[in-house]
């Protein structure tokens, strides 16, 4: 009886098709990432850019197909909190790199 209440909330998007599409996209992006490094056919600077673009795309694939994050109303607060966290991560990581880099240059 009680179990039927859950049906229409967070599980609403779940389907085999979603997971299979996500899986195929993730495998293709992983192969691109590893291929960029293992084959060495792409110039280094371009390969680094390619790596990060592929990683960002793969994270987006995981969020959308596996974590079912989208702009729908039921996901609104999940989206707001992850956007805020992304800002925090940017401040932490870019800030750390910036500070340590200038420190290194000044110590030279």
């Amino acid at each position: 009886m009680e179990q039927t209440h859950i049906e229409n909330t967070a599980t609403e998007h779940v389907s085999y098709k979603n997971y299979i599409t996500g899986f195929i996209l993730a495998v293709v992006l992983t192969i691109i990432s590893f291929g960029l490094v293992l084959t060495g056919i792409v110039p280094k600077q371009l390969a680094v850019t390619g790596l990060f673009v592929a990683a960002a795309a793969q994270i987006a694939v995981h969020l959308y197909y596996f974590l079912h994050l989208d702009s729908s109303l039921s996901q609104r607060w999940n989206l707001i909190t992850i956007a805020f966290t992304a800002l925090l991560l940017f401040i932490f990581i870019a800030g750390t790199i910036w500070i340590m880099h200038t420190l290194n240059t000044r110590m030279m």
Partner: protein
Amino acid sequence: MQNSMESTYPAEWHEADRLEIQMLGFWIYLMSDLVIFAILFATFIVLGQNYAGGPGPKQLFDLPYLFGETMLLLTSSVAYGFGMVAMQQEKKNAVLAGLGAAFLLGAGFVAMEIHEFYGMIMAGHGPSHSGFLSSFFALVGTHGTHVSFGLLWMAVMMIQLLIKGPTVVVRSRLMRLSLFWHFLDIVWVGVFTVVYLWQVL
């Protein structure tokens, strides 16, 4: 009235509202976990080139082996997802099959990682050797610990599903474990990109 005194939730709330707020609470925990990983990533980026005369990423990392690890974790994530679809269709045995497959694939990932760590430490390249290795073991080890606890949680949930059956509480816990498990796969995308591939390049 009495009902609302006992519960931490307003009495007029339905089970679905409760599930939604629990999912959001767990999501916010995951965001705070992401902050821990961000700090470890920043530490690795800063210390990652300090080899202290020891071996660097090119000597230590075996990329085809890493590709195997990556595929294990990804298929584990998808197997768990299949289990969640089965849960929606009320097929208990299929849920157990999905969880079991996810557990075995995840355990394979942890076993490969332990083997990798063991080989490095036995060769004298443990975390105390250089800044690069300290930050490497801290970041990759933290992720591996998360995966190990996820496996423990998954084993507990399989037992609960067998004993209690797919009750509201068990289903709601399985949904939060689903978030945790997929989340760890996302962190792994960052790990294999920043720690392994970028450093070898």
